[in-house]
C-alpha cells in the first residue's frame, strides 16, 4: 500500500500555494503537511500543528473569524481531515469568506506506516465539503490545474476547499520548531505586534 496512482508531488503543490504568500496566515495539520510547509520556508505566520489530530480546520476557522480581513489557508492531510469531518460542517455554518483549506490527499496515513485512509477506498473529501455547503470545493489531479487551484485558494469567496491528489512517495523530513508556546508567541507577535506576544 505504499504507492498510489497520483502524479502530483506534495512539495510542488505546497511550494506553489505558499509562493508570494503576502500577508497569508497559514495553519498546517500534523505530520507531512507540517513538514511540507516548513520545507517551503519557515515563517512566523505559519502555525504548525504537531498533534491534536483533527484540529487543523478548527484552528483555521477560529483564526479566520478573529481576523476577517486576512486570508487564512489551512494545509492538511486526508487522514487529519477525516478525524474531524464535522469541522467542515461547522465551517460551512459560520461561512468565513476568508477561510481556505488545501488537502494533500495521498490516501495514506503517512506517519504510521502508510496504511490506507478512507480516501483510498473512494471517500470524496471535496464532495463532503460541497455537501456541507462550501461554495467552492474541487479536486485537482494534474499539474496544469495548480495555478488555478492556487488562485482559488487565495481569492475565491470562502470557505473554499481544494483536494490535491498527491503521490504517496515520502519526501525528506524538514522539521519546523515544535515548541507550541514558541509557535504561538511568534505568530501573535508577527500578527498583532510585540505587545501581544
Amino acid at each position: 500500500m505504499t504507492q498510489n496512482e497520483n502524479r502530483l508531488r506534495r512539495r510542488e503543490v505546497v511550494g506553489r500555494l505558499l509562493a508570494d504568500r503576502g500577508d497569508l496566515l497559514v495553519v498546517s495539520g500534523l505530520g507531512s503537511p507540517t513538514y511540507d510547509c516548513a520545507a517551503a520556508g519557515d515563517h512566523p505566520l505559519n502555525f504548525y500543528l504537531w498533534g491534536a489530530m483533527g484540529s487543523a480546520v478548527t484552528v483555521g476557522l477560529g483564526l479566520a473569524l478573529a481576523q476577517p480581513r486576512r486570508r487564512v489557508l489551512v494545509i492538511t492531510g486526508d487522514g487529519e481531515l477525516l478525524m474531524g469531518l464535522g469541522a467542515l460542517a461547522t465551517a460551512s455554518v459560520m461561512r468565513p469568506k476568508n477561510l481556505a483549506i488545501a488537502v494533500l490527499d495521498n490516501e495514506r496515513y503517512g506517519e504510521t506506516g502508510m496504511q490506507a485512509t478512507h480516501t483510498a477506498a473512494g471517500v470524496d473529501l471535496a464532495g463532503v465539503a460541497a455537501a456541507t455547503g462550501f461554495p467552492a470545493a474541487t479536486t485537482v489531479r494534474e499539474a496544469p490545474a495548480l495555478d488555478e487551484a492556487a488562485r482559488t485558494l487565495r481569492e475565491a469567496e470562502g470557505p473554499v476547499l481544494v483536494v490535491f491528489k498527491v503521490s504517496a512517495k515520502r519526501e525528506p523530513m524538514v522539521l519546523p520548531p515544535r515548541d507550541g508556546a514558541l509557535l504561538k508567541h511568534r505568530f501573535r507577535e508577527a500578527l498583532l505586534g510585540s505587545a501581544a506576544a
Partner: protein
Amino acid sequence: MVYSERPETARGALGREPQPPSAAGTLDWPLLVFEKLREAEVRQVAYVPDSGHARLIELCHADGDFTTTPLTTEEEGIGILAGAWLGGRRGALLMQSSGVGNCFNTLSLATVCGFPLVMLVTMRGEWGEFNPWQVPMGQLVESGLRLAGVVVYPVYDAALAAPAVEAAARIAFNGNRAAAVLLSQRMLGTKLFKD
C-alpha cells in the same frame, strides 16, 4: 477548590454584597455569567448545546459583538478558540459534561501551547441523575480534567457561578491556562424525564 466550601473567598471576589444560595430559576445566573464573559473581553463563544446552557447561548447569539459558533462535537471548540487567540480574540467553550470526554486529546493543543481556554461545563451524571448512561462520564469529569492539566472550579450554588467564571477567566487569560467551571446538577436542577 470547591466554591461551596469557601463562599467567603468567592463572594469577596464578586465585589458586592453576598447573595444567599439560590435555586435555579430564582437567580438569573446565566446573565451574570454572560456579564463576566463580557467583562473578560470574551467575544468568541463556541458550544454544543445543553439545556443548562440554553439561556447563556441565547444571550451570546443576541449580542452583536459576539461570534457564536455551534459545534458538531466539543473538541472543535478547543481548536476554534486556539485560532481565535492566535488572531487576538478571547473565547469561551460551552458544553455538557458528556462532551468533556470528547476533548481529551485535543486539550493537548491548549496545554502544550499555553492557549487560554475557558470551559463552562453543565453537569450530568453527578447529582440525582435519572439516566444511568450519563453517570460514567459525569463521574470522570472533575478528576479527568485535573489529570489533563485543567484548573477546575466546581460550582454547586447558582450565586457562585459568575464569580467562578470570573476566576476561571482570570487564570486562563492571565496565566495561559485551561480552566473549567463545572455547573452542578444541584444548582441547575436534575432532569426529571417527565412531561
